[in-house]
């Protein structure tokens, strides 16, 4: 089938102040084809597609969309023109029901949206097709992340989109859900839709891409058809040099002494639960926690860090209780704690970088020491000006700032939650280096991550969390596979492993 060019980028550039997010990119989007836009974090993939979707205009260059002479002025216009985008952060209203969310995005919603109205029945047709188990009247915040993603996809399909853009869709899915999504994507392309898949995972590319555009530092460095290049070549193009993914592996630990102990921990907070969690981490040991997002990882971290109280059970560090019992207690956490979303959870935006680095001391009423500049440079925080308010930093730099504070001095234990989110490869390596250095110095490391490959490469043991309970703790001795972890994450029976 002769593919139509549905959209065309011509030397498109986008600046944010001094930052060049997209650099003279030229690309065609064709119907009936899955185009993978591949690159590591910060390469500009999301920004490129947001330009098409109309979130912001290009600084220079032109984007033409077929049958749309006036261009795309904004997301509402994009929807009207049949361009749908499924973002990493879903565009859903958690307090409203699935049906309401779908009706909101649907152009043909009648004035009276009664359930008996035939027109409102149409909006649910695709949902019933893709996921009959989801009850349309449930509120979105009661759905799992994978289900929310399906709802998001249905929103886009309901507008009969001719271009569907998916931004890093598989980062929140179990391996089985990922396979299902890959199937949807291939089906969409077979139906004539142009699918753009933004990803940094080679697995996604291997599974469904017809064409591969590689981006690096804002520029499109290569466009190739499936099969034209080997995976190694593509990795080289992505990284800019031949790089073996060189995760510093931790030193093996023999008979470790228990350091960080969770004993029958149960807790509950805003919809999440922890049920009878028992986990022991020894001196110098790195224990990874794998699981689909939203299965209790956040609550687990907050309980161990002493932010949320436990209902039952205890958390001990070096024999001392660090769990919070009453909401009114005040504890200052002795762990090195790197939470997810550092902007909301680990920094005070109005204070300066130096003050944020010294937050523990300031909160305890002590004076600050003057080592901030060294720390900022050691962790590559940009710009390294101690007096600047932390709110002016980008997300990635805030992550590095928090890492600097928590990993910069030896600690008895480290609790790291998705510590490499939003960082480029060099920064990821640096953060891992520091975490494993802490382990080498004797710290107990509890590491929550979404990246199974990283966990398999570097953790001594991997615990799997599902629905607030630890369903397994496996030794990572070389025999543990992705499939096995995936099955545990999804709660499926373990099938005999395909290598």
């Amino acid at each position, binding site marked *: 089938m002769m593919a139509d060019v549905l959209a065309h980028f011509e030397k498109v550039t986008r600046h944010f102040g001094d930052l060049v997010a997209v650099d003279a990119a030229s690309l065609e989007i064709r119907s009936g084809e899955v185009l993978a836009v591949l690159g590591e974090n910060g390469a500009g993939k999301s920004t490129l597609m947001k330009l098409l979707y109309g979130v912001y205009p290009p600084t220079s260059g032109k984007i033409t969309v077929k049958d749309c002479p006036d261009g795309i002025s904004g*997301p*509402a216009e994009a*929807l009207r023109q049949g361009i749908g985008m499924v973002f990493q952060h879903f565009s859903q*209203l*958690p*307090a409203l029901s699935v049906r309401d969310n779908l009706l*909101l995005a649907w152009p043909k*919603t*009648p004035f009276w949206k009664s359930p008996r109205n035939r027109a409102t029945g149409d909006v649910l047709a695709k949902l019933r097709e893709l996921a009959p188990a989801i009850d349309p009247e449930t509120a979105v915040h009661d759905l799992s992340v994978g289900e929310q993603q399906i709802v998001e996809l249905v929103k886009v399909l309901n507008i009969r989109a001719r271009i569907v853009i998916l931004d890093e869709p598989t980062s929140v899915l179990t391996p089985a859900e990922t396979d299902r999504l890959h199937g949807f994507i291939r089906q969409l392309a077979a139906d004539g839709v142009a699918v753009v898949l933004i990803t940094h995972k080679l697995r996604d590319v291997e599974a469904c891409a017809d064409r591969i555009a590689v981006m690096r530092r804002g520029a499109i460095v290569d466009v190739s058809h499936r099969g034209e290049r080997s995976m190694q070549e593509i990795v080289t193009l992505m990284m800019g040099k031949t790089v073996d993914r060189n995760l510093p592996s931790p030193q093996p630990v023999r008979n470790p002494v228990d350091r960080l102990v969770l004993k029958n921990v149960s807790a509950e907070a805003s919809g999440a639960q922890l049920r009878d969690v028992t986990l022991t981490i020894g001196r110098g040991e790195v224990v990874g926690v794998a699981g689909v997002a939203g299965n209790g990882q956040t609550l687990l971290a907050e309980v161990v860090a002493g932010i949320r109280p436990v209902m039952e059970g205890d958390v001990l560090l070096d024999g001392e209780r660090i769990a919070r019992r009453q909401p009114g207690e005040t504890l200052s956490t002795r762990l090195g704690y790197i939470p997810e979303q550092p902007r909301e959870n680990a920094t005070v935006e109005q204070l300066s970088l130096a003050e944020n680095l010294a937050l523990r001391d300031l909160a305890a009423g002590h004076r600050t020491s003057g080592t901030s500049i060294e720390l900022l440079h050691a962790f590559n925080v940009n710009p390294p000006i101690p007096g600047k308010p932390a709110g002016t930093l980008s997300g990635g730099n805030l992550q590095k700032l928090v890492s600097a504070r928590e990993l910069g001095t030896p600690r008895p234990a480290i609790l790291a939650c998705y510590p490499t989110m939003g960082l480029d490869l060099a920064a990821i390596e640096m953060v891992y280096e520091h975490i494993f250095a802490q382990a080498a110095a004797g710290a107990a490391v509890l590491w929550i991550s979404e990246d199974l490959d990283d966990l398999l490469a570097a953790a001594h043991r991997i615990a799997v969390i599902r629905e607030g309970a630890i369903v397994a703790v496996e030794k990572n001795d070389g025999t543990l596979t992705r499939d096995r972890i995936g099955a545990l994450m999804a709660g499926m029976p373990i099938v005999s492993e395909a290598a």
Partner: protein
Amino acid sequence: MTADFVALLAPWCIATLRGATPLIFATLGETLTQRVGIINLGVEGEMLTGACVGFAVGVATGNPWLGLMAGALAGGALSLLHAGLVLGAGANQIGSGLAVWMIALGGTSFFGRALVGNQVTPLPNLGSSLTDGIPFVGTVMAQATMAVPLAVLAVIFVAWWLAQTRPGLRWKAVGESARIAAENGIHATRVRVTAIVVGGLLAGFGGAVLSVDYTQTWAQEMTKGRGLVAVGLVIVARWKPALVLPVCLLFGLAEVSVLRVQSAGYEFSPHLLGTFPYLVVLVVLVLSHIFARKASAMPADLKAVFA
């Protein structure tokens, strides 16, 4: 026996209904405003302005309905100031509401001077020779005016509109996230301005009902914080229009009990009794926090105002 009971109950019901009616309009209006993510403390000022202008027009034209309309329009006009400050100039919502209240306090104080002591033609009662005979309902209708059923209808209509219509859904979306609403092609600012003005119209109408219908007088600062009570009651009603009715009736009941105790001849300071309705609202507000998960019901964008 039953006749006595009915005779006792009827005046309480009537008084509660009539006392609650102005508050129902104001609370309903503020509920809509808060559902789109805006808090408007100027409701107090809008009620006051509605009471003042409504009374003035009612006296001048001799037609209470014109007075009520005028009161509504005055409240709506004043709310435009809040809309302009918050949405046009990005001003802080609490501060803007208080500024509007201040201006209304001063303005009505000034313009209302001339109105004190005037008489207004009241709204006709609902009762007629047809209904006078019916035991309980007849007595109630004989003493109530159109304002009461209007209030009930307004609640029913707004509850249905918010839950079952497309524009109602869009308004709810704006209150949850203006950003996501915009991504769905909704003009968040336009919706917010509309909601603020509708809130102002309803508050103004409620104020006019207070002066023209309920008390049939004008006095300085006569709303005595009813508008602020309305803001509190929106929270107690969990931002649901349908709950506005029972919640306001509770306040009306509290007010009526105070008056009854006074007229029953008990030796109680009228001022001390006057604190009772406010205390009731405070207690109910606290109870609703203890027993319900408030955080989950508040429209998400509204939370940002208090963060």
